[in-house]
């Protein structure tokens, strides 16, 4: 029954659909959503850079809306003062707003538009830009030029950045060198096992020794470091047995080779171990999401210029200089910077920051307004009652920043097991050492004991977890599910309750025309004309919905237009009296009780009924019915009780499990009381709860701060991703468990062989890769039966219903 939408109007620059007619700025045949986009378009156009739109369209991407706020970049100058002393200065800056190929193209073309800029190179991976500028131009000037294009430049914490760069490079170096050394050592090892003897055997062994030196002393240093760090925290990590095996294996081989002239050498096993583990850890890092790990969010608007009113005089000031009691004026479309008391007449505010509802709400004089709300009516004057850094929003952001820095890491399963493992191996080794010492001599005892330690090296155990993670992370990424780190997956498998936000998560978050009866072109036209005169938020939503299937050019003349306060609007058209607004009680459609209903009356007779509301997402009911079997589901929303209850009813969620009128603080407090909670949300109002949940999932076009607080990011906002995520996390856990069992059984065999004295380097060389291989194979196979079961279940249900 929904209205069949025609293609909506889209902004020429940012290609976002235009919801409110007021935002349209027409210019020839171009349509813009705001002045920012218009400016950028004209800059590009006048410089022959229109190719930007071709590249962007070929990628089917949407540019971000250009935010045209006055920004102060002068702080950049002092930071880059040193670099600017040289004739041509090269600097590296962080760029905000890059998201597609067209941006890359435009930014690298920027030297053609911006004076004094010689070169611009983008690093997409790190989202940085390398600039080469004349020393005649200030960095702040360049930054201002970029902000006109819609990109924001920021200073980088140079030390941190270089360290990050360095550690990435050395990680690659370690893998490369370990790989090269391993490849060569293998060649000699194979010829030795194949029966090389005499001079050749000796020569090959010495070459192996030399090649394994970089592996032991360079490539494995991360293992040593992390095991020492863990020991300092009085914990045993999986890296400890690895380090012991590597070091002992190397020195035992060295001793055997030079002093004993025996053939018990383990160079090949050690290097294979180091290479495989380095590689698997690198892959885990590649597949975890960079966006969620960025250590950077900026909410600081303290440099923004604000208009204040004092005794009728207008004074411009920086936001941070504004104190309590001052009166501030802000314009339409701006985000309020302060908490305060409203001093204007009726205004409309988008309070999504606090409530999560993006439908504008009317506020009256004397009511409190909060920073972060977006002004929807013309202008606002309000009296500041908290300074910029003390506003409710700033406090929230501060808390979230603290949270995301201190979120406790779970101890990985492999680490837990390896703790027991180390104790077991150590006691066993001491026991065996004593025994063989009594039976034989010190020489034999020492050799056997060392052999046990080397053979029991949990190589496969160390591989078991990262490999399983890599596979799952990659699978998830294919479905556009991004994960913060490997902990997340392990935590996901122990989730017990799921808390959902309503607007934007379960529902589409847009006010849409749900139902209309009858479909009549003329009445629609009348409605449209009537609503055009009104600035009421509901009127505006209805108007933009109606416009989709209307021919705007034909006009109807209204006579005697009147606005009936909090009822609706009325006018005469061709001598008929029309009223549009609140329904009479007897006309309310019971089916759509919880939605907003508007009626068009012609001479006091209902002729057309419109139902507006926020619709439930298509996949939501399915998801909820699926999740209900295994988890406790809760809804926590900032919206009114009736709306939340009706949504819950439609999704058949218990009434006791729904919570309405929740402030951001309420939500987070609620999450804390639940056992192993997973929170799903999208707005600033959910962020604190996202941060406090075991797993925070942020969805769709979430704001920066929500991203920072969460562990999982679903950019496509598909709800079925959540059940997939939970399924994969369970599968991962079962794979990890199986991998660990495999590797432990191999170790058991190895240790038995070592005790009985059967172990030779050949056995070790076969056993170690074999155990690693079986772990790799087991990971690749995964747990198809687990996934199949789930799919079968789902399809069964589908048949029944």
């Amino acid at each position, binding site marked *: 029954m929904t209205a069949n939408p025609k293609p909506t109007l889209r902004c020429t620059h940012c290609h976002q659909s235009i919801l409110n007619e007021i935002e349209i700025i027409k210019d020839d045949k171009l349509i813009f959503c705001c002045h920012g986009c218009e400016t950028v378009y004209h800059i590009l156009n006048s410089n022959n850079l229109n190719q930007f739109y071709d590249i962007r369209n070929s990628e089917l991407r949407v540019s971000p809306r250009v935010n045209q706020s006055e920004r102060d970049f002068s702080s950049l100058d002092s930071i880059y003062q040193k670099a600017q002393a040289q004739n041509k200065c090269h600097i590296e800056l962080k760029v905000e707003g890059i998201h597609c190929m067209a941006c890359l193209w435009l930014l690298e073309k920027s030297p053609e538009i911006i004076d004094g800029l010689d070169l611009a190179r983008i690093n997409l*991976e790190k989202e940085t830009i390398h600039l080469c500028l004349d020393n005649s131009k200030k960095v702040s000037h360049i930054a201002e030029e970029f902000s006109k294009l819609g990109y924001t430049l920021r200073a980088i914490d140079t030390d941190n950045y270089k360290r990050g760069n360095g550690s990435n490079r050395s990680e690659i170096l370690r893998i490369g*060198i370990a790989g090269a050394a391993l490849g060569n050592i293998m060649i000699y090892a194979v010829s030795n096992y194949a029966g090389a003897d005499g001079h050749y055997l000796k020569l090959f062994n010495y070459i192996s020794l030399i090649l394994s030196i970089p592996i032991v002393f360079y490539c494995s240093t991360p293992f040593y470091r992390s095991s020492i760090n863990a020991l300092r925290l009085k914990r045993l990590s999986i890296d400890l047995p690895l380090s012991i095996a590597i070091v002992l294996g190397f020195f035992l081989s060295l001793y055997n080779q030079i002093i004993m002239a025996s053939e018990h050498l383990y160079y090949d096993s050690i290097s294979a171990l180091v290479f495989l583990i380095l590689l698997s850890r690198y892959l885990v890092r590649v597949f975890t999401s960079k966006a969620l790990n960025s250590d950077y969010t900026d909410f600081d608007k303290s440099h923004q210029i604000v208009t204040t009113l004092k005794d009728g005089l207008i004074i411009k000031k920086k936001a941070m200089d504004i104190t309590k009691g001052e009166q501030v004026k802000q314009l339409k479309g701006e985000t309020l910077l302060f908490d305060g008391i409203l001093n204007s007449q009726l205004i409309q505010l988008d309070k999504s920051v606090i409530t999560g509802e993006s439908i504008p709400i009317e506020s009256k004089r004397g009511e409190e307004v909060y920073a972060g709300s977006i002004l929807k009516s013309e202008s606002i004057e309000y009296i500041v009652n908290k300074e910029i850094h003390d506003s409710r929003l700033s406090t929230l952001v501060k808390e979230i920043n603290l949270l995301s820095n201190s979120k406790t890491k779970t101890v990985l399963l492999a680490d837990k097991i390896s703790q027991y493992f180390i104790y077991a191996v150590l006691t066993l080794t001491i026991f065996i050492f004593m025994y063989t010492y009594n039976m034989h001599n010190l020489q034999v005892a020492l050799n056997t004991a060392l052999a046990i330690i080397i053979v029991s090296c949990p190589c496969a155990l160390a591989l078991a977890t990262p490999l399983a993670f890599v596979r799952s992370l990659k699978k998830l990424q294919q479905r556009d599910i991004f994960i913060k780190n490997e902990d997340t997956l392990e935590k996901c498998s122990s989730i017990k309750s799921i808390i959902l936000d309503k607007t934007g998560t379960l529902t589409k978050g847009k006010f849409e025309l749900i139902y209309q009866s009858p479909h009549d072109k003329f009445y629609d036209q009348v409605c449209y004309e009537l609503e055009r005169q009104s600035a009421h938020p509901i009127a505006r939503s209805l108007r933009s919905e109606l416009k989709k299937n209307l021919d705007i050019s034909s006009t109807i003349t209204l006579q005697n237009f009147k606005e009936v306060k909090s009822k609706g609007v009325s006018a005469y058209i061709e001598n008929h009296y029309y009223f549009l607004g609140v329904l009479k009680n007897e006309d309310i459609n019971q089916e759509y009780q919880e939605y907003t209903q508007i009626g068009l009356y012609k001479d006091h007779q209902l002729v057309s009924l419109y139902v507006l509301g926020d619709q439930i997402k298509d996949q939501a009911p399915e998801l909820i019915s699926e999740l209900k079997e295994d988890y406790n589901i809760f809804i926590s929303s900032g919206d009114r009780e009736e709306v939340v209850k009706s949504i819950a009813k439609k999704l058949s969620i218990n009434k006791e499990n729904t919570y309405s009128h929740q402030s951001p603080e309420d939500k987070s407090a609620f999450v804390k009381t639940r056992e192993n909670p997973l929170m799903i949300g999208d707005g600033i109002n959910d962020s604190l709860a996202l941060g406090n949940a075991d797993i925070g999932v942020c969805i769709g076009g979430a704001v920066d701060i929500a991203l920072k607080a969460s562990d999982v990011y679903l950019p496509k906002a598909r709800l079925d991703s959540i059940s997939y995520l939970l399924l994969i996390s369970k599968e991962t856990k079962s794979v990890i468990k199986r991998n660990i069992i495999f590797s432990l059984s191999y170790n058991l065999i190895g240790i038995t062989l070592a005790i009985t004295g059967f172990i030779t380097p050949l056995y070790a060389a076969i056993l170690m890769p074999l155990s690693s291989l079986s772990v790799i194979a087991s990971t690749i196979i995964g747990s198809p039966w687990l996934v199949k079961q789930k799919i079968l279940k789902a399809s069964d249900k589908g048949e029944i219903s």
Partner: protein
Amino acid sequence: MEIMFFLLPIAIILGASFVFFFIWATRSGQYDDLDSPAKRILFEENISMKDYRKGQKK
């Protein structure tokens, strides 16, 4: 089999030189950004029609 004593050093020197080049490439930052070069290559250079015709005449 004496040829081995000649071949082995060559093999090792070759291997070492590859490792050396790898180290050099990494240090010079070639592995720092694996995303943008792949996209950058797809951009066409802006060639105006004049230049294009000139090129054709030659």
